[in-house]
């Protein structure tokens, strides 16, 4: 016979609810005596259900629940001076790895203020925490890997750029040197894009920053006297996908190279403007200069590789290219209309 007579009897239904709870639960008296434990609790923490009734919290299992901090928090909850909400404890058992638990305790109020009982819910978050840590590790690893890839791409582009410039310094032919320099500009255009992408989120490229960098890069290598020639960038807040930006960047590169090479002979001064604006699916890119203007008729230069590249890229983007007199100078406008893609399809089908 227990020495302390049980004054209160628990309703069978209450005990049934506790025992059948899916969530590990302990039903305690205010003296931290275990009235009932859910089957899930016994299963999760390897406690013999037969040993539960009448034992004290600290006596459960091998005494691993005798945590002074938990006991004092529960006592405080019982007296109404505290509330255990999502309190974290480590359960240490011999021959088991430490479990990370989240406990919630509250008093059960059935109107009888002399009869205080506690309900302690225990959640094992060991695996969840481990998974979260693993996820963090993976995210960090991926970020490091991405940085490493970007570093390698930059190094590879540097190798190509170095080799092209070495070749350009060695060749005798002025024409060959020009071609090598152009190839170098194309590589640097992709490099500027790569730099823009490495600082962007979600893989879209902000054109103003990209074209500004592109203009600086082209200016640095092609403009000997910045007081004579300048590149100006007037671009709205548009952002495009990485593959579209490759095409746009290469078009800008070709057209700016062209303008700087041909529009300002004989020490002319002038400005080349890179302009881009978009609205919905419609966009317009224009490269204009205030130079000598395009020669026409028999004086017109033979279309070079640059022209071919631009035409191919514009076609890819579903755009239209227009060359006009800017008075003074030349403006090349590439535009993409909402219905442009459709019209191209119709005309090729016809």
């Amino acid at each position, binding site marked *: 016979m227990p020495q302390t007579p049980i004054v209160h009897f628990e309703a069978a239904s209450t005990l049934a609810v506790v025992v059948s709870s899916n969530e590990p639960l302990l039903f305690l008296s205010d003296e931290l005596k275990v009235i009932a434990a859910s089957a899930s609790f016994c299963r999760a923490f390897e406690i013999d259900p037969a040993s539960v009734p009448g034992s004290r919290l600290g006596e459960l299992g091998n005494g691993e629940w005798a945590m002074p901090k938990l006991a004092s928090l529960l006592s405080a909850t019982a007296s109404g001076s505290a509330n255990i909400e999502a309190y974290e404890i480590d359960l240490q058992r011999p021959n088991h790895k430490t479990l990370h638990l989240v406990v919630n305790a509250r008093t059960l109020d059935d109107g009888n203020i002399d009869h205080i009982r506690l309900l302690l819910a225990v959640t094992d978050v060991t695996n969840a925490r481990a998974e979260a840590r693993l996820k963090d590790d993976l995210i960090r690893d991926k970020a490091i890997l991405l*940085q490493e890839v*970007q*570093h*390698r*791409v*930059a*190094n590879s*582009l*540097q*190798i*190509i*750029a*170095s*080799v092209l*410039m*070495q070749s350009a*310094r060695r060749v005798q032919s002025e024409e060959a040197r020009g071609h090598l320099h152009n190839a170098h500009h194309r*590589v*640097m255009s992709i*490099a500027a894009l790569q*730099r823009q992408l*490495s*600082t962007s989120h979600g893989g879209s490229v902000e054109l103003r920053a990209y074209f500004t960098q592109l203009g600086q*890069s082209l200016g*640095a*290598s092609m403009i000997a006297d910045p007081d004579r020639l300048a590149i100006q960038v007037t671009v709205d807040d548009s952002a495009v996908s990485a593959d579209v930006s490759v095409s746009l960047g290469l078009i800008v590169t070709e057209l700016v190279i062209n303008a700087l090479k041909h529009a300002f002979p004989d020490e002319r001064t002038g400005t080349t403007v890179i302009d881009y604006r978009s609205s919905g699916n419609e966009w317009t890119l224009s490269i204009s200069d205030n130079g000598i203007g395009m020669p026409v008729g028999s004086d017109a230069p033979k279309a070079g590789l640059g022209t071919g590249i631009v035409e191919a890229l514009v076609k890819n983007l579903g755009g239209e290219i227009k060359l006009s007199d800017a008075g003074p100078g030349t403006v090349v406008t590439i535009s993409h209309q909402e219905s442009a893609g459709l019209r191209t399809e119709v005309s090729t089908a016809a």
Partner: protein
Amino acid sequence: MNNGKPVVLVVEDSALIRMGAVDLVLSAGYEALEACDADEAIRMLESRDDIDLVFTDVQMPGTMDGIKLSHYIRNRWPPVKLIVASGAAILEESSLPFGSRFFSKPYDDHAITDAMARLLSSDAPLAPTA
């Protein structure tokens, strides 16, 4: 100075990039020396006293990367000018010794020779590093 020509030490572990950088230095009219890591660079700096500028990569095998090397050089050979280039994420020039220049890779040859010319022509005493 060597025959009146400034001497530039290129520190870079990638052979092709190093070759290109040496070619760049020569084409700019300077004398070029090369090292494939920080340790070799320090040995060269210790063995001769005519190096005016060090143009270094950041990520290199060996005991020091280019950033540590640049600080080491600033402390031991304060007059030596410094240019640092890297393919890694954009670096703050503030993490480099005072007065050094940073370029991200791939760098533009003109930008590098321009920076070399400016650094080599400035004989202004360096402000003490904070």
